[in-house]
């Protein structure tokens, strides 16, 4: 049996891709990804149109998708995150059908239950053998975990692996094995390492970010969850990662050892593992070179699928064992609903990713955010897009105070006892508006450009096209 195809074109011909079908991609190569563009360009050249692209995320590097929308090659998009020129095009109303925005856990649920049916999964593979045993930990385009591609590989009608690093059979470890892969295509390069991962992930130098982070770490301590066996997830940027650093200091000084760190894994978490401060790492995505080295070498650094990470329909998933998650927000309203999908003007600039999944799963969900961003108050009466429901959010930490969701009255009392600067969320809104003024309301048309699907499959909000001035 020979699974190797001489070219992308011959692979696409072999899988019988037709107009009207759904193709899928993962985003482990992030903004260094070459594969989505090369596949879609080939599909366009072959005269195929009306394709739905179901990618776990779209990055600025995928801006070329705009031309495929204009030409009718692509008529529908499905993702968990979107930024860059494609997001701008969708915001402007270029795509006729609304984009489906899901969560990482919700996407895997939708694929595994069949509500998101994939005809052909194109899987970028930093390492593959001739039969399609794939991993992301070796090769010039290494990305570490391949967690987001696993549901696609399992459920797509046909699977095409695309690699720039063909190794001798059998390849191991196999994050995705040959039982799922139909064809293997070898190309010169699947990605630009500079865009795939960063060399090192640095903690913010922004002093306001550090104020927020210190408060967030104090909140975790006051919650009573800072004890042996603690598990936590933080983002890789800004105040989120800084929070993890302050939490680490507390763990060291109090002799506390955690059970696992999770999420997008950075060198920070690797250090915690190697320093004995964490027992294990659960990794659905690697963010930097240290994380890739660790997942390749350390059996305590565990690669998981997006379903294992956060699928709400699974018998269990990792977010349900999470103690603390620290997340960001572009807006949060006085009911604690969080927007991470659009800015206050309705421009698409991100997506849930694992935001809603971890918020619901964790025992303590903390949102860290500057009270003012680009002169706009972050606390609003009603979020422009509801992505993570307020009932799954426990605390908002800003540089000018901490607001606790009224449903967590006991937590509010604990924070007050510790002397933390607790305020009502309405007070925080007033402080922000006093400093920056109340923003003028953005007007929207009736045209729906996106649907926000919660992790359980429920549509919880719709994105409307804004009225252009």
């Amino acid at each position: 049996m020979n699974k190797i195809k001489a070219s992308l074109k011959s692979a696409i011909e072999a899988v019988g891709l037709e107009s009207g079908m759904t193709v899928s991609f993962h985003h482990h190569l992030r903004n260094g990804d070459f594969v989505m563009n090369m596949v879609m360009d080939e599909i366009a050249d072959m005269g195929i149109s009306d394709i739905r692209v179901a990618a776990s995320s779209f990055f600025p590097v995928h801006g070329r998708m705009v031309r495929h929308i204009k030409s009718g090659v692509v008529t529908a998009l499905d993702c968990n995150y979107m930024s860059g020129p494609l997001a701008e095009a969708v915001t402007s109303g270029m795509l006729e059908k609304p984009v489906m925005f899901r969560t990482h856990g919700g996407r895997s649920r939708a694929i595994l239950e069949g509500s998101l049916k994939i005809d052909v999964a194109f899987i970028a593979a930093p390492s593959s053998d001739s039969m399609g045993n794939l991993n992301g930990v070796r090769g010039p385009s290494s990305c570490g975990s391949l967690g987001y591609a696993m549901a696609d590989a399992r459920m797509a009608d046909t699977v095409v692996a695309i690699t720039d690093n063909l190794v001798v059979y059998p390849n191991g470890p196999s994050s995705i094995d040959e039982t799922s892969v139909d064809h293997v295509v070898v190309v010169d390069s699947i990605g630009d390492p500079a865009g795939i991962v960063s060399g090192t992930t640095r903690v913010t130098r922004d002093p306001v970010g550090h104020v927020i982070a210190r408060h967030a770490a104090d909140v975790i301590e006051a919650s009573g969850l800072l004890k042996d066996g603690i598990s936590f997830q933080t983002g890789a940027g800004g105040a989120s990662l800084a929070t993890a650093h302050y939490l680490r200091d507390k763990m060291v000084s109090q002799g506390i050892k955690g059970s696992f760190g999770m999420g997008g894994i950075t060198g920070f978490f690797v250090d915690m593992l190697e320093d004995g401060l964490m027992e294990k790492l659960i990794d659905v995505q690697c963010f930097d070179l240290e994380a890739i080295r660790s997942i390749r070498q350390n059996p305590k650094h565990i690669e998981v699928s997006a379903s294992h990470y956060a699928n709400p329909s699974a018998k269990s998933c990792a977010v349900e064992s999470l103690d603390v998650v620290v997340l960001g927000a572009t807006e949060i309203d006085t009911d604690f609903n969080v927007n991470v999908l659009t800015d206050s003007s309705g421009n698409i600039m991100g997506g849930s990713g694992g935001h809603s999944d971890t918020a619901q799963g964790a025992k303590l969900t903390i949102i860290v955010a500057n009270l003012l961003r680009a002169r706009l108050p972050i606390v609003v009466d009603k979020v422009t897009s509801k992505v993570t429901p307020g009932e799954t959010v426990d605390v908002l930490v800003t540089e000018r105070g901490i607001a606790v969701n009224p449903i967590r009255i006991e937590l509010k009392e604990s924070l007050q006892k510790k002397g933390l600067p607790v305020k009502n969320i309405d007070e925080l809104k007033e402080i922000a508006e006093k400093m920056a003024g109340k923003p003028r309301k953005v007007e929207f048309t009736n045209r729906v450009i996106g649907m926000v699907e919660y992790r359980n499959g429920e549509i919880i909000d719709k994105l409307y096209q804004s009225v252009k001035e």
Partner: protein
Amino acid sequence: MGTNLLFVPGNNPAMVQNAGILGADIVIFDLEDAVAGDQKDAARSLLKNALESMEYEGCETSVRINAMDTLHWEADLRTVAAAGIDGLVIPKAEHSDDINTISGILDSIPEANEIFLIPLVESALGVENVYQIAASSKRIRGIFFGAEDYTADIGTVRTKGSKEILWARGRIVNGAAAAGVEAIDTPFTDVEDIEGLKKDTLFAKALGFDGKASISPRHCGFIREIFYPEDEEILYASRVMDTVKEAEKAGKGVASMDGKMIDKPIVLRALKVLRAAGIKEDFKYE
């Protein structure tokens, strides 16, 4: 006065806006070294607007005006004093006359009644004259030692070991104490070296300084932690003051606690502890 003072560039709108939440007891908005010559007017205007419109809760505000040998200092002083400021840091303080000049101007501005002064002593002459400077005005809250300019003035190199400023530090502490004002130590300028900061701050505290300035918000928390008294110290100091006040009320000439006489040094130390803990104590030792 509080234990940590933080420099914030007076021409940086984001820093000026957020200065009140960075953990400093006193924010020093800097119009001097942080602002280029052609930006002085803009920075002064920015600060005026910020002081008039922002609320800086939880800290006191001060401005380091430009030195008195420049064209800017008086405009700085009059603008920020009228805009609402708690204190002024006077750079390159060398003579009591300079402080008197500034005090005189402040006395003529109705909004400036309560404004305190912190002379920044940063030259060989300033260190020689530290007591006269510290005792020159009722407005003086403390003396602030600036080691960078000082070492340049005496012709030596500034090092992390700080042996070259040992004598000056001691003289500052002594001069300030003699005048009954506080002594504020020079900033530790390596922002990344937290261990070095801690060591330097502990040493300054041991010398007798009441607080320390910083150029990075990251340093504020560490400085406060080191200068902040232990719970037992605060408790003891509170008991001392209660005992002294009770004795005074009862017309007793001598107060005693736990079988020991409470004399003036014990009271002064107790007052210092309470001040460092941010506890107001109106008691005046006769």
